[in-house]
């Protein structure tokens, strides 16, 4: 169990059975009054943010989370299906949990899934992913408004800006942390 004096940014605690991470923390104690621990919390399942103030004497159950090595198998009506590399069990992550990460999943990709009990609540992708450009109009000469970039769509439906020389059908590398174009991939 954690006590109030253990609270700080990055600590993960259970609230109503759900894992929450402290993303903002401030200790205060008005003149001769009680210690107040003002926390900004993020629900690690839903992503919702809220403030809560705790007082000394309260205790907290740590949220135990593990990261498992998994392989992305396929997407179907139930969601995105992954297989644990250790025990070959399959789990499903929903679109809500994945958010924009869903655009960077390719079949057989190796990822880390953040597990809360038997629930997958988050994903760590490889830093770089290669995806093929499916739609990108040729660059219009003289269109300098966007510099030398033009819009493109890749096979997963993700939209981004690419340099003017990238044609439809080109395999490109994307940085999953920023979602930005990195380079063309030689095939």
């Amino acid at each position, binding site marked *: 169990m954690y006590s*109030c*004096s253990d609270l700080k940014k990055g600590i993960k605690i259970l609230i109503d059975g759900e894992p929450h991470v402290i993303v903002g923390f*401030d*200790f*205060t*104690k*008005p*003149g*001769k*009054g*009680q*210690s*107040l621990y*003002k926390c900004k919390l993020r629900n690690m399942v839903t992503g919702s943010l809220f403030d809560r*103030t705790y007082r*000394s*004497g309260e205790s907290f159950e740590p949220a135990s989370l593990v990261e498992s090595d998994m392989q992305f198998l396929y997407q179907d009506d139930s969601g995105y299906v992954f297989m644990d590399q250790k025990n070959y069990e399959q789990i499903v992550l929903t679109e809500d949990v994945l958010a924009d990460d869903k655009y960077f999943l390719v079949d057989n990709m190796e990822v880390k899934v953040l597990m809360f009990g038997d629930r997958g609540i988050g994903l760590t992708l490889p830093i770089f992913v290669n995806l093929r450009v499916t739609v990108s109009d040729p660059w219009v000469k003289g269109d300098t408004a966007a510099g030398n970039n033009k819009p493109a769509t890749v096979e997963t439906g993700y939209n981004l800006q690419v340099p003017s020389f990238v044609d439809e059908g080109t395999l490109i590398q994307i940085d999953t942390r920023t979602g930005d174009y990195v380079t063309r991939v030689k095939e």
Partner: protein
Amino acid sequence: MAHFLTEKQDKLMQRARIIQRIRAFFIESGFLEVETPQRIPANAPETHIRPLASGDWQLQTSPELAMKRLLAAGYNNIFQISHCWRDAERGRKHLPEFTMLEWYRSHCDYTQLMSDCENLLRFLLPETELNYQGQRINLDQPFERLSVAEAFHRYTDTDPLSAIREDRFDELIAFSIEPRLGLTRPTLLYEYPAELASLARCKPGQPELAERFELYIAGLELANAFSELTDPKEQRLRFSMEMLKIPANNGRQTNLPEPFLSDLHRMPQAAGIALGVDRLVMLLTNSHSIDQVVAFTPEEL
């Protein structure tokens, strides 16, 4: 990257000068500087202040009791700059070991200390305006006097006594009132509910109010002052009530500071104040965090 102590050098030099100026102010005002032991058998019991044990004794949470025994022995105007310890207090404005300035005057009440605060701040900062974190605070005018009741009326939806009953007093002070105090000129927040001031005298004719004030500048709580309670019977009763409120797991002590209680009947009418030196240095050096104005935080040791 420069070493953290190199980065602090300018602030620590300013800190040293500020402390020298504080001494000069009190010496010029006719005060005697005193030193009392920092390791003591018993602190004054306070519900929300947790002393640190030192063997069978404790480190002082404030030099208050020893200084009042000096008053009882006939010392009139005294001041002390000393280290104090309060367990588990750590934040932007808190260190578990910090530096406190306390001064006491006999034969006066807390209104005299309000003037002392005005004079001390003006002595330390000859400019008429202080700039703290983008907030401009005028020091030329008299400090604002705001009663706790007025502050609750102005900034909350309730009154102090209801807030205490609903166990919201501290939260409202910390989050709704404090951040709005002392923003254009320093604020003296005065007249606290009596149950929140176990060492303070009650207002004559209004026993529900204690003659206690706090000094705020730029939302920062700087000092806490009382007209001192001099009635030993009343003091023993208040200490006992305070001890009952301390949770058993919170370092509750079983012994009262008996030598202080037995000297108290000799203490003349007096007023005393404790001012956080580190916070004053934060304010005068425009520092966001207390970490910037001490050589070492606990984490840096």
